[in-house]
């Protein structure tokens, strides 16, 4: 190697043999159990949503004759209806499976909307600073101050109850936290000298914002997006619970829980099934999100 007035220590070239994929995976799983558990649950949810018709051959809206007892009460879990039926004789298990579709769709798309809006505004505010920053942040504060459920109700009432409108409503109300987080990250990253170096090299503003700052901001963004999917699923369930979410007969865990509350005394499975499904789904996203935070930023304050 060239001798440049002083010894240049050439780094060792021999690369130690890499451990097998299996060995590294199990090590990782032991170190970050939350991530893997969360990921497993999320994966399960996705599979359920995608393959619902194959997991259960029954129709979620069908009201077969043997769905109800002679006196009109729902059937308890049995061989045919493994999680029982509801007040209209529909199979609860199938409805829970199909309900995952609504939850996932709303969760993901609402998160996507709030991701796009929040990141754009946060990037712009953090990068330009000054008046632009103040303007955007005051606007963000205003949106954050809105009582979520009330406004979501109003929006869905105006737009009309459909899955699309629900996730639009949730998305445009929930971008505030993302904007703040992104802005904070941008403010931190902006001061690093590699950003100054880009300016010194003559990079355009757009280039600096999107190719340099944005990739370095992604860590917390990923965590927040994951967590927000969980939150949005819960939000959708809340709206359906209140009766302003998706229209029947589309199954939604929220509306199933609402019905289940009424029938708790004589048909508790109507409450348990969707309730547990909701609990586990949101838990899954939370575990995944928290786990990601542990991986990406072990120094953060929560523990």
């Amino acid at each position: 190697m060239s001798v440049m007035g002083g010894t240049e220590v050439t780094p060792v070239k021999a690369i130690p043999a890499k451990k097998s994929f299996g060995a590294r995976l199990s090590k990782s799983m032991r170190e970050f159990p939350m991530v893997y558990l969360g990921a497993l649950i999320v994966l399960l949810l996705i599979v359920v949503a995608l393959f619902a018709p194959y997991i259960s051959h029954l129709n979620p809206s069908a009201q077969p004759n043997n769905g109800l007892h002679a006196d009109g009460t729902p059937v308890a879990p049995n061989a045919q209806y493994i999680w029982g039926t509801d007040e209209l004789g529909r199979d609860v298990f199938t409805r829970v499976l199909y309900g995952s579709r609504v939850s996932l769709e709303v969760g993901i798309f609402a998160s996507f909307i709030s991701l796009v809006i929040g990141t754009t505004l946060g990037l712009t505010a953090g990068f330009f600073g000054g008046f632009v920053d103040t303007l955007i942040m005051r606007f963000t504060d205003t949106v954050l101050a809105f009582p979520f459920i009330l406004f979501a109700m109003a929006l869905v009432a105006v737009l009309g109850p459909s899955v699309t409108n629900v996730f639009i409503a949730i998305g445009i109300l929930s971008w505030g936290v993302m904007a703040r987080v992104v802005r904070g990250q941008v403010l931190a990253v902006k001061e690093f000298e590699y950003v100054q170096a880009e300016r010194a090299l003559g990079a355009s503003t757009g280039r600096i914002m999107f190719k340099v700052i944005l990739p370095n901001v992604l860590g917390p963004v990923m965590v927040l997006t994951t967590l927000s999917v969980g939150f949005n699923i819960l939000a959708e369930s809340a709206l359906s619970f209140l009766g302003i979410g998706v229209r029947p007969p589309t199954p939604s865990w929220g509306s199933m829980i609402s019905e289940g509350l009424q029938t708790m005394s004589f048909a508790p499975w109507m409450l348990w099934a969707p309730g547990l499904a909701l609990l586990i789904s949101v838990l899954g996203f939370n575990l995944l999100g928290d786990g990601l935070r542990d991986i990406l930023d072990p120094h953060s304050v929560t523990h």
Partner: protein
Amino acid sequence: MSDVLLKVEGLKKYFPIQRGVFKQTVGHVKAVDGISFEVKRGETLGVVGESGCGKSTMGRSILRLLEPTEGVVEFEGKDVIKMSKHTMREMRREMQIVFQDPYASLNPRYSIAQTLMEPMVIHQLHTPSSRMERVRTLLERVGLDPDYAKRYPHEFSGGQRQRIGIARALAVNPKLIVLDEPVAALDVSVQSQVLNLLEDLQKDFNLTYVFIAHDLSVVRHISDRVLVLYLGKMAELATSDALFEEPLHPYTKALLSAVPVPNPDVKRERVILQGDLPSPANPPKGCPFHTRCPVVMDVCRSQVPEWKEVKENHLVACHLYN
């Protein structure tokens, strides 16, 4: 082609201090308060002063990484401050900067190859296929193994990262490089390697350096001329030898007396300054150094000393010589 590559005249950079709900400007931090000098092609101008004297701010203002409040910065006769954004972009190929912190100056998400290709992509230099070749050449030129191009910054030591930073500055073939304390964060042994590299590169590429530092022995070694700053103003400017052998300004004398000499038997007059650096938001009237000057006179407290050529090519701002 003129000998003078960079001419700075009356450079000022004030930072507004804002208080209150409506962000009233209640004062200014006068980081750079009237600096003028010339740098010849191929020369190294060392800039020294204690922390907070405005050296880094000056360096960045010259490159317009900070917009100067006032002043003229002429690069090959063209006023850089007044340039349009478009022209400035072209100009950025002529003047580059190497930063102090090797750990913050490289984008952690880019491989070294990507970092070095950034300047080429931004200015559309070389064809995409030949860029990698250029990256390898640059790495070799700074003493790094070109096979490491695909690695990421965290896989390198501080000294190696500085070399990468230098390679990045070289990628656009600049004429002037501002070095903002480039070796301050490195171990002494590594410092000498990097300094030698800088000297070799200067010879090979006919580079002009503005070398900002607070380590006087480093500055003496690498500079042709040295500018001493105090609280944003110029104190003394002379050739390196003249400054170190016959310092004129009391501040320079104090600085030099503080440089350790590796000989315990040598007895030296230590000039120990009383007090702290005054706040640049509220600089003293008259000569900024009068609050700590061991030979202060009455006139120093009220009148700003003139910047005068006291000996040949040796300029000072001090009432002792007025």
